[in-house]
């Protein structure tokens, strides 16, 4: 059938199983939006306040479902407003297709109105990108974009479509729905040798990250840990891949991870890194991290092997496939002595004190966790509240903790929470944020109101930029430069002014009550929790440090 570029675009989206897109209209995408209008019974478009919110929403949608998120923006400023959202997805390996309009092909390169070379701008922050210059190439290019975004290590792909291409017509040849994720089924590496190493080890340790979650390999990981009796610690990207309370789950590793987990990493004789990349938030000192261990690195991306840390052994492959291969050679083991040693370190783990009268961060997180329930999805912005959420939530499900780990994007949370809630309407979504982060993208409250998306936003308000202030306190002699804005924003009034609901709490009892009410709301709710600015994220290992440098107060 003969269709124009815009209709072809929507048809390919439908082909790919897309039922929801996020975006913001504009001149260069008028034809695309006309097609979306025609197909509105089959594809839902969520219009946000800002393209950044739309990009983060597509990200939250993708992280919470495993499907590829789609965001549409117009040319020029619409496209550049996507950049932070695309970079956020890139750093955390989130499958996303960003579609931008551009000026018509004869106008390209002439500094036309709302023209920008978005393909050049996004080159370093996309897995790949395309500029479609002929409508005949559009369908296959889009199919390629989806395939690249979801295959192997996922990531964002941008497709830039000039306006005339969205209007030109050609024959559209439908294709069948593709495989949801294309993963390598073979592995490269000596699996048996590595299994022998693990079988011979006395203090084995697993450090795992987002790759376990993306591979859906929680069961396979658990099987390894239980059979070979190995303790494991996770990164931000894998919170919930193992459940809170499992014996082999030592907790969060890294700069603000559990002291006992970091001790175990330091003392291990075999460290098995699975689906993770030795980021500078975990391997703070690349020459000393895991220095007592033989390091085994298992990852789907060969570029990660020996990038930050030299591995003694490595396997390149999909985590689930690799673990299944490995288990053929792993023997049951008992490392009680090692676990006893770890129990000893656990006595020294940082435990904040409770308070009945004032709000303490760990109690806010704990109360929200209980009120929202085990199925809830928790989303954060960036800063102290993010670390507290990572540390004190009782993570039990793998795709239920959405946080910008790699890029650390303040302002990520609200859009992402909206995307996650739209993707999972029957699951409570709690968005932890702070006064700093929320001021960045609070405008998305209008989106939550317009679409009646009942996200519960818990604002840990200490009137300062907590994480920056904490570092300035620790390393800059308490010279709090531009970190104490002490904004007087009345969050309750703002929430109501946008059409939402707001609560302000100063005590644990008030917060419990507010959460109870919020859980029943049919629209977005903001709950402001007043927190003391001297609260710190602890423990902390400073950059370049080791577990021996851990700060406890």
């Amino acid at each position, binding site marked *: 059938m003969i269709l124009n570029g815009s209709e072809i675009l929507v048809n390919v989206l439908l082909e790919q199983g897309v039922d929801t897109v996020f975006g913001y209209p504009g001149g260069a995408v008028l034809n695309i939006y006309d097609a979306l209008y025609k197909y509105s019974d089959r594809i839902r478009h969520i219009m946000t306040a800002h393209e950044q919110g739309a990009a983060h929403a597509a990200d939250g949608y993708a992280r919470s479902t495993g499907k590829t998120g789609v965001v549409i923006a117009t040319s020029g400023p619409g496209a550049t407003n996507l950049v932070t959202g695309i970079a956020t997805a890139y750093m955390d390996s989130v499958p996303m297709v960003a579609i931008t309009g551009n000026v018509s092909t004869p106008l390209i390169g002439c500094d036309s109105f709302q023209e920008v070379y978005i*393909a*050049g701008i996004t*080159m*370093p922050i996309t*897995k*790949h990108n395309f*500029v479609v210059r002929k409508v005949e190439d559009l369908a296959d290019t889009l199919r390629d974009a989806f395939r*690249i975004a979801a295959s192997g290590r996922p990531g964002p792909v941008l497709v830039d479509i000039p306006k005339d291409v969205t209007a030109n017509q050609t024959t559209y040849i439908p294709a069948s729905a593709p495989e949801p994720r294309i993963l390598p089924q073979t592995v490269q590496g000596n699996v048996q040798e590595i299994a022998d190493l693990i079988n011979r080890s006395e203090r084995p340790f697993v450090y795992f990250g987002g790759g376990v979650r993306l591979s859906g390999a929680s069961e396979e990981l658990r099987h390894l840990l239980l059979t070979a009796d190995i303790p494991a610690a996770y990164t931000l990207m894998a919170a919930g891949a193992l459940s809170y309370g499992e014996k082999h789950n030592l907790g969060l590793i890294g700069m603000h991870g559990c002291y006992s987990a970091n001790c175990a990493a330091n003392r291990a004789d075999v460290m098995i890194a699975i689906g993770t990349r030795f980021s500078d938030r975990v391997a703070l000192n690349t020459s000393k991290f895991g220095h007592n261990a033989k390091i085994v690195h298992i990852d789907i*991306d*060969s*570029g990660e*092997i*020996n*990038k930050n840390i*030299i591995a003694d052994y490595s396997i390149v492959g999909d985590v689930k496939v690799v673990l299944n291969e490995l288990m053929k050679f792993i023997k049951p083991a008992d490392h009680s002595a090692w676990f006893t040693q770890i129990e000893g370190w656990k006595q020294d783990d940082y435990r904040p004190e409770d308070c009945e009268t004032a709000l303490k961060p760990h109690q806010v997180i704990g109360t929200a966790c209980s009120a929202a329930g085990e199925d809830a999805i928790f989303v954060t912005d960036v800063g102290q509240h993010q670390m507290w959420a990572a540390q004190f939530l009782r993570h039990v499900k793998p795709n239920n903790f959405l946080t910008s780990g790699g890029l650390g994007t303040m302002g990520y949370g609200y859009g992402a929470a909206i995307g996650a809630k739209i993707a999972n309407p029957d699951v409570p979504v709690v968005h932890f944020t702070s006064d700093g982060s929320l001021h960045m993208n609070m405008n998305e409250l209008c989106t939550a109101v317009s679409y009646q998306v009942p996200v519960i936003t818990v604002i840990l308000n200490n009137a300062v930029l907590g994480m920056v202030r904490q570092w300035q306190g620790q390393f800059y002699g308490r010279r709090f430069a531009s970190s104490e804005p002490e904004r007087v924003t009345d969050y309750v009034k703002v929430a109501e002014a946008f059409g939402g609901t707001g609560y302000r709490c100063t005590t644990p009892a008030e917060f419990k009550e507010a959460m109870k009410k919020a859980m029943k709301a049919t629209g977005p709710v903001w709950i402001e929790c007043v927190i003391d600015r001297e609260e710190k994220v602890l423990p902390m290992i400073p950059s370049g440090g080791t577990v021996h440098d851990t700060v406890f107060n």
Partner: protein
Amino acid sequence: MKKQCMVILVENNAGVLARVSSLFMQRGFNIDSLTVSSTENPKISRITIMATGDQKTFSQILKQTAKLVETKMIFSVEPSFGLIRELLLVKFNTEQADVTALKKTIDDFGAHVIDVTSGCLVAELSAASSLIDDFLDATKAFEKMEICRSGAIAMEQGRVVYDI
């Protein structure tokens, strides 16, 4: 610190060179020279890169470049097992210069005079980069008005099957 020569066969798409350069800038790889040209296959372009670094850097260059969607193949060419050549054009000022001596040095190195115009002489030399360095050194007594080097191109010796 070593110098390494890498050949990347890429899809002949608009912007592929920009993408490779962008990757190198992003990762902080130190490029000494980069050339690109068409090949015996109209769909494939050939990029030759000379880079300086250590083994860890070269390993990362090979792996990260291999990940690019448009990369069909990437391999390094060892100077001992491959043919690595560069083209030099150099313009000498011949006014008040011992042109005979200059022409002899040019001849000794296997270079060629390709232009003589209004007090200038342009010599062309196609050789290994080290020989070009030696030639420029051997002619240092003569004033060089312009020097232009093409950057290296490289090929492995013998029959090679590229699985693209």
